[in-house]
């Protein structure tokens, strides 16, 4: 494991933070809820929920509509959230921040606009072996339509991408690279900056799936030099239904619009429609306004805690949980990358992950059991599914202890 980032920072006051999350005081099957499923969806602090409720209660209308004070107010809140996103990921301009429903929609948008223009018959799309289905299926659909081929960057048994294979895989036919920043199954933090640099040498653009990265590490899209960077609000302590596509302005300007409708047009006549400039041309219809505002507040919340402090705290938890779980003889952790975010996938000999998931649930421990929308990763490691615990800044060592003893109890039951 790498050295602990931000070890010299003031630690998080987790006891205080936990008060912002009502769910953490819920009781499940007579046990306090231990929420170790933030990689599925992060919990929202009360500040986010209250801000969205206030919008719906006192400020609700539509954005970019007419001259009413209310509409102007809503538009200001909504656009202020866009600016928060810009700053959060270090983008150069708010024109580069497109609202989407989430990571999946953002990738589909790029595949269906940039992809459909640039990918032709015989071309190649390069993905990594640890992609989520969201960064596989949209490209397969495009490849099928165009007669293109999907190529895959392989990974080691430890769950690290084999970059030595890159030079051979990046060919003159490669039209785009899609790579996950942090694996949702293995926790691996991929060296996306290096991958981007090497793709750029050959003039190939790169889309980074940052859904599992933005909650855990400081991202700067300009430093990475990413062409596209996508993520979801709900993994970042924000609501569902809102996500972000960052795209370099030159790409966004050159891309055709995707969905047509209101909000994305400059003028419409029966003969001809002209479109808004980016990001407007990609935002047809009424957006999830409260969700966008809520995501802005989530970013404020995370920023106030500081991602460096969050990363340091979560790293400690990861080390502790890895150490405790590793001591269980029949348990095997999948993914032992040198750089890892706070995600641990594991299998226990003789217990199917779904049984383990149900038994842990009985102990109030919420984890994900399944293929994690990453079936090629399951196939790569020869397992049908895994159990995954994912840790956030509000989790504690005591919760790790409860996870470990719940796993031990399940093993005892199945003995």
């Amino acid at each position, binding site marked *: 494991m790498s050295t602990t980032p931000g070890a010299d920072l003031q630690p998080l006051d987790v006891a205080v933070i936990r008060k912002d999350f009502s769910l953490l005081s819920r009781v499940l099957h007579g046990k306090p809820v231990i929420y170790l499923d933030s990689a599925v969806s992060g919990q929202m602090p009360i500040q986010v929920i209250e801000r969205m409720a206030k919008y719906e209660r006192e400020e609700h209308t539509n954005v970019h509509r007419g001259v009413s004070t209310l509409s102007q107010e809503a538009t200001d809140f909504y656009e202020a959230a866009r600016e928060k996103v810009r700053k959060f990921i270090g983008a150069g301009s708010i024109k580069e921040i497109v609202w989407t429903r989430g990571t999946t929609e953002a990738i589909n948008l790029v595949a269906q606009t940039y992809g459909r223009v640039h990918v032709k018959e015989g071309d190649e799309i390069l993905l990594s072996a640890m992609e989520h289905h969201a960064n596989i299926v949209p490209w397969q659909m495009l490849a099928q339509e165009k007669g293109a081929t999907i190529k895959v960057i392989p990974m080691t048994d430890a769950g690290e991408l084999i970059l030595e294979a890159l030079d051979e895989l990046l060919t003159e036919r490669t039209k785009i690279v899609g790579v996950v920043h942090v694996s949702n199954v293995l926790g691996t933090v991929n060296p996306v900056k290096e991958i981007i640099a090497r793709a750029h040498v050959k003039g190939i653009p790169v889309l980074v799936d940052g859904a599992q990265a933005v909650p855990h590490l400081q991202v700067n899209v300009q430093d990475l030099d990413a062409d596209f960077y996508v993520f979801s609000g709900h993994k970042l302590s924000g609501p569902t239904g809102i996500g972000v596509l960052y795209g370099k302005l030159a790409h966004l300007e050159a891309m055709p619009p995707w969905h047509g409708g209101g909000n994305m047009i400059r003028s419409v006549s029966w003969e001809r429609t002209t479109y808004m400039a980016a990001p407007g041309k990609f935002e047809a219809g009424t957006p999830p306004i409260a969700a966008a505002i809520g995501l802005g507040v989530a970013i404020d919340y995370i920023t106030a805690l500081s991602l460096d402090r969050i990363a340091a705290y979560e790293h400690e938890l990861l080390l502790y949980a890895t150490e405790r779980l590793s001591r269980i003889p029949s348990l095997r952790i999948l993914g032992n990358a040198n750089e890892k975010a706070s995600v641990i996938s594991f299998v226990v000999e003789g217990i199917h992950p*779904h049984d383990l998931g*149900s038994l842990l649930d009985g102990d109030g421990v919420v984890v994900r059991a399944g293929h994690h929308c990453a079936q090629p990763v399951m196939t790569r490691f020869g397992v049908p599914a895994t159990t995954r615990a994912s840790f956030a800044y509000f989790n504690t060592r005591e919760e790790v202890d409860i996870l470990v003893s719940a796993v031990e109890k399940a093993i005892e039951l199945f003995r």
Partner: protein
Amino acid sequence: MSDPRELYQQVILEHNKKPRNFGKLESCTHHAEGHNPLCGDELSLTLVVANGMVQDIKFTGSGCAIDVASASLMTGAVKGKPVAEAEAMAEQFRGMVRGELEPGTQTPLLGKLTLFSGVKDLPSRVKCAVLPWATLHAALKGEAEASTE
């Protein structure tokens, strides 16, 4: 919602560990593959049906304890029974685990299979328990595949 742990009774755990009728009948008259796309559970059933009776039945596959124990107990329950009775059991079993039976309904055919009645309180696991029965139903109808999708 009941405690998920209550489902994991000794009989179920024991059948998971040592499944009965595990294997493949080489000269079968009926067979079907069952698949649970959500979990990746897979089940292969082979049967010998003669004179309207399930003469023999075996299964192979991989899945969770609920799935494997359900298949193990099912094969034991239908072996030697008339096809019509096996079908009736399948119907009662599915009704039971889906919570679709009228309160007070008797399920005399099911016997110890009522161990699985707790599954109805765990919606995410209903498909695991049902997969063997859905596969049996498909095999008896002459269909090659069953899916709980």
